[in-house]
Structures are given as structure tokens and as C-alpha cells.
């Protein structure tokens, strides 16, 4: 089993379908526990009105997290999240300048920028073998210069149409949540049920083995960055709609949480299998955690600590192989016992 090797590439490749991944079970259990805690200690955090207010932000984080997951699956890191989300926000609010008619061209341009940034990131990392962190942090600076060039750092008010599309509700469900679910379905289907997706995961788990098996590795690795940028861009456009008057730096607060949800969802930072559903649940978890902290009225310092502890918990669960450690100790002690009885 892959789990017994010290440097497993994210466990089994998912082809021999395991029952339920550890990440999924853990995050679902944690989320249920959190909801229970909310019901007992902060019932206001789980009322319909409160969820209507906070779920859109969980949805945005989920979408950004899915993008980060694709990159992490290829053993990379994408630090250009703040720049690309902010750029999408700025383009979606500045170019239409309050006019609904200008919205569609603006969205097309935003996607165009995202594609260009993704392709550049992909080429730098996959083909020129630049370190992903270095390449994407450079890209982030480039994207922010575009943010300044377009906006001068000044926010503009969202068009009514975008506010309705991204911030509206249908049957009591915020549209942004529907967007997140649709994107989740798309990413899951693409990863798990298409040939391209299966190859993508296999390459992430072990590029050398995949190369030996005759797959061309580089296009798949580059693809991760392109798809990620498209997802960040979508998230940025949604933020522009949800927040009536977004700042030009709206992406800044998303970088760390985007990595956090990927880790909490059990994706190995060395690459390999991705868990889209777990990522989205983790986004809900993190968001609900801060709502919980806000509702019980703890000071800001404690809110930050609670979130940090959640991260430590997440990393602790996945990075340390608790079960194998436990088993080893058990076997050795039984061996000792056997010796004694002999």
C-alpha cells in the first residue's frame, strides 16, 4: 500500500476506488461537529438569515480553493490568487462603469486576462521548470500592476445586473452558492470521469511514472494553472457582484484560506489525488468557523487563534500517519509479548 511508504504521493490514485477518503470523512465529521457546536453555543450563526449572509463568501472561497487544488495536485502552489481575483473584481466593476450593457464585454476581457495569466504561469512552471512559488508570486505582482493600471486602486460600484446575477437569490438560495455547486460538479466530473482528468491525477501523483507510461506530462501540468486562473476569475466576478462596492484589493484575504481549504480537504502538498467535494466542504467549514467565532463574541485575537488552530488540526490529521504509527507500536508490543510467552 502506498500509505506505508514514507513519501507516498497522496495515497492510492483513486483508480481502485477506495470506499471514502480520509479527508472526506474528517472534514465532514469536523463540519458536523462545528454545526453542533454552533447549535449549542451560538444558535444565531446557523439561522437562515445568517447563512444567507455568509454562504456567498464560503462559495467564493470554495471556488478559489478548487483552483488552488488543481495546482496543488500537480505538486505546485499558486500564489497569484490575490492578483487574479482582484483583477477580475476590478475589470468587472470598472469597465462597465455602472452600465449593464458593458458587463458582458468586461467579463470576456476578464476571462481573457485570466487565460493569459494562466498560460504564462503554466509555461513558466511546466516548460521552463521554474519553481511554482517564484513564478506565481511574480505573476501576482504583474496582475496587481494591471489592477493599478485599470483602476488606480479606486473601487467602483457594481452594475445592477452583476449584483443580481452574483448576489441575488433563487428559491432562497444565494446564486453564488449555485455557481459554486455547478463548478464543483464540473470539476469533479472532469477530474474523476474523463480520460483527461484521470491522466491529470495520475501525472500529479507521479510524473515520472506517467512519463514512462507514455503520457505527455507538461501540457497537463500547465493546464492546472490555466484552469485555476479561470476559477479565480470566476470567484472575483462573483465577489464584485456580492460586495456592492468592492475594494481593488479584494483578493488579498483569500490566499491563505485557499491553501487552507486544500490542506483541510486532505490533498497532499506533494501532488496527486484531488478531493473537490472535500475542498468545498472545507470552505464552508472555515467560513462557518469564523461566523461561529463572531457569534460567540470572542475578541478578534481569539478569532484569529481559532482559525489558526483549525489549520494546525487539519495539517496534524493529514501530515502525521496516526494509524500506521499506532499499528507499528501495537505490532511491536505484541511481538514483545510473544517473545515473553515463548
Amino acid at each position: 500500500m502506498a500509505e506505508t511508504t514514507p513519501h507516498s504521493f497522496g495515497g492510492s490514485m483513486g483508480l481502485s476506488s477506495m470506499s471514502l477518503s480520509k479527508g472526506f470523512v474528517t472534514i465532514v465529521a469536523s463540519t458536523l461537529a462545528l454545526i453542533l457546536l454552533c447549535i449549542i453555543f451560538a444558535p444565531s450563526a446557523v439561522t437562515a438569515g445568517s447563512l444567507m449572509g455568509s454562504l456567498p463568501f464560503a462559495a467564493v472561497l470554495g471556488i478559489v480553493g478548487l483552483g488552488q487544488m488543481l495546482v496543488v495536485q500537480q505538486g505546485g502552489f499558486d500564489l497569484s490568487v490575490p492578483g487574479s481575483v482582484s483583477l477580475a473584481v476590478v475589470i468587472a466593476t470598472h469597465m462597465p462603469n455602472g452600465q449593464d450593457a458593458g458587463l458582458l464585454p468586461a467579463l470576456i476581457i476578464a476571462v481573457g486576462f485570466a487565460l493569459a495569466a494562466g498560460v504564462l504561469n503554466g509555461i513558466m512552471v511546466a516548460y521552463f521548470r521554474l519553481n511554482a512559488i517564484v513564478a506565481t508570486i511574480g505573476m501576482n505582482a504583474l496582475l496587481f500592476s494591471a489592477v493599478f493600471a485599470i483602476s488606480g486602486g479606486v473601487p467602483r460600484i457594481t452594475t445592477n445586473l452583476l449584483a443580481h446575477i452574483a448576489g441575488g437569490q433563487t428559491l432562497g438560495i444565494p446564486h453564488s452558492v449555485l455557481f459554486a455547486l455547478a463548478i464543483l460538479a464540473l470539476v469533479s466530473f472532469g477530474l474523476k470521469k474523463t480520460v483527461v482528468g484521470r491522466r491529470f491525477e495520475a501525472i500529479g501523483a507521479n510524473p515520472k511514472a506517467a512519463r514512462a507510461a507514455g503520457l505527455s506530462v507538461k501540457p497537463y501540468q500547465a493546464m492546472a494553472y490555466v484552469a485555476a486562473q479561470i476559477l479565480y476569475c470566476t470567484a472575483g466576478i462573483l465577489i464584485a457582484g456580492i460586495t456592492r462596492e468592492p475594494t481593488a484589493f479584494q483578493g488579498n484575504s483569500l490566499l491563505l484560506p485557499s491553501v487552507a481549504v486544500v490542506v483541510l480537504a486532505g490533498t497532499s502538498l506533494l501532488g496527486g489525488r484531488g478531493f473537490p467535494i472535500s475542498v468545498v466542504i472545507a470552505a464552508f467549514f472555515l467560513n462557518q468557523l469564523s461566523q461561529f467565532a463572531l457569534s460567540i463574541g470572542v475578541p478578534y485575537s481569539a478569532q484569529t487563534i481559532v482559525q489558526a488552530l483549525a489549520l494546525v488540526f487539519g495539517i496534524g490529521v493529514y501530515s502525521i500517519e496516526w494509524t500506521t504509527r499506532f499499528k507499528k507500536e501495537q505490532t511491536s508490543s505484541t511481538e514483545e509479548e510473544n517473545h515473553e510467552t515463548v
Partner: protein
Amino acid sequence: MKLSNLKGCAAYMALGLGIALSASAASAEDAPSWCGPNKASLALLDGFGGNSWRLVTTASGKEEAAKCPSITDYYYADGQGDTQKAISDINSMAARGVDAMVVFGDAGPAILPALTKAYRSGAVVVPYRVNVGGEAGKNYTRFVGADFVYDGESWGKWIKENFPDGANILFLSGPAGNSQGLDELKGMKNILDDSYKFLNPDPFAVTNWDPSLTQQVLSAAIAQHDNIDVIVSDFGPSLVGALPVFANFDRSIPALATSDGNSLGCFWEKTHADNPDFKLFTVATGNDNVRLAVQWAIAEATGGTPPSEEIFKAPNFEDSTDGDPNPVQCRSDLPGAIYLSAQLSGDEQAKAVGQ
């Protein structure tokens, strides 16, 4: 005025380039008393120039400087939120031999050594609005602060007037522990007794002045408290995205005491009919603080008469209950991200924010 032609240079500002301008256009006869006869150059140094409030403030500072024909050169630099860059901006202006500097010290005491060096090398140094530590006459010429306690007192008086029997108040401010929020709270407590209860964790609910965080904080607070009578916020426009959250709970938006912004005024106009409890009171958001600082710097550098005030007190601006001093203002033809309380005209502001 010739200066207005150059106000569209927002992109250059973002790059932090100093823009040299000739201000000789203003004629000598209408020079104000703070503008003395000695020639001088002036630099406006911003710690972070990337939002509409700062752009309006920068344009206001430039307009004020242009009133004085003795100012031969005008420079601007944007620290872009980077303490290192803010420090090197100050040093390079000092090295260039600029006579007077007006500094928005976002980084606080971290820039004090650079200010002290510039002051000792002979320049007039006027930090404003953000306390940088040190003392006047030793580390810099004069600190032109803003009186946030006064803002808090203005809000407190209005709350007392409209809720004479006590009220539940939700107070939102910026980053944790920011001195502006603490001073405002002090001001409110000077006016309001114990019958006024603050629902937020002490001293204020942290929003970082970020619209999306404000939205999350507000929805948690609304769910938690059934009876919020007044919301107090020191950055009114950041609430525009968050206030519709009340509709999710089938509740009216409560009374709001805050600072002004065009988008907020227009939001009130659109929504107050459906929200019977939505009264709005604003104080000026303080763009004109820079004018006072520029007057001080120019007076000291050119030998003019310094202004009488040393601290900027934001005047009341809008009150939806009695229209004193103004009813709620909305210019829907202008961008939302401008401040009608500022002296700079709405159209000039629109130009300053690049629209």
C-alpha cells in the same frame, strides 16, 4: 486653473512618481494669509494612495497648494502601503532639497526617524492625521491631527437626541486596535451613559474597513441580536454592500451614524422608504484634513501666517431627521466613491478618481 489639467494622472500617482507642477498660475493678489512671500517647494507624501478617499485627499491637497503662488514646485509620492518605500520617499524628497513636506504617516512611528532626519536637515515637516509619535519642534515642525474623539461625540449627541431613553449600539471600525476607533469610542462614551449598550465585543467589531468582511461581521451580528437600534461605523460607504443583509431577516435597516460618501447617500435615497427605521447621520469624512496640513506647511515654509486651528475637527454633514446642516446628499450622476462633504467640487473629485 492649469493644475486641473494634470489631475487625470492617477496612473502616475499609483506608480509613486513625483509630479512636478508649476503653481505660478495663481495670481498674487488673491493669495491667502497663510501664503507668505518666500518661494518654496512642497511635497505631499502618502503612505498608501490606492483608494478613492486618498485620491480625493491628494487632489484636495494639490488644489490647496495651488492657491499659493509662492509654491514653485509641487511633488507627490505614494508609499503604496509599503513602509520601506514610504521611508525612502521621505529620504529622497529631503535629498532633493524640498522645502516643505506634508506626510500621511500610515506606517506610524516607523517613519519617525526619516521625518526627524528631514526636519533636522532644514525642511518644514508636517505629518497629519495619523500619529507618528515624537514631538513638534524636535522631530517635525507640527502634527496636524484629526480629532476622532470629536467625531465620536458628534455621533453620541445625535444618538442621544434620537434615542433619549437609551439604545443598543453596534459599533464597527477598522483593523483591531486602531487608534481612530478607540478615540471615537471614547468620544461616544463621553456623551452616552450606561443606558446605551454596545452590542459588539469591546472596543469595536473589527472590519478592517473591508466591505466583504463588514458584510460577514454584520450578518453575524444581525442574527445574534434582535434589537440593534443604531449602527455606528467610521467608514460609511463600506456598509453599502452589507446593509441589504437586513432584508434577509425581514428587518428594517436601523439608524446609522457614520461618515459620508456619495454611494451611501444614494443608497439611503433608494432604500429609506422601505426601511422605516433607517435614519442617517454623517460627519464629514475628513478629506479636508490635508488642506489644514498644507496650510501649516506652506505658512512655515513661506513665512505666512499659520492657521488658527491645529487639529482638524470634522463638521457634521448630513442628518436625515432634521436636515441640519444638510439633508442626505446624493449625486447619482457622479461616481459613488466620492465624498460630497469635501471642499473639492463633486466634478473635480470625479476627475480625481479617474471617472
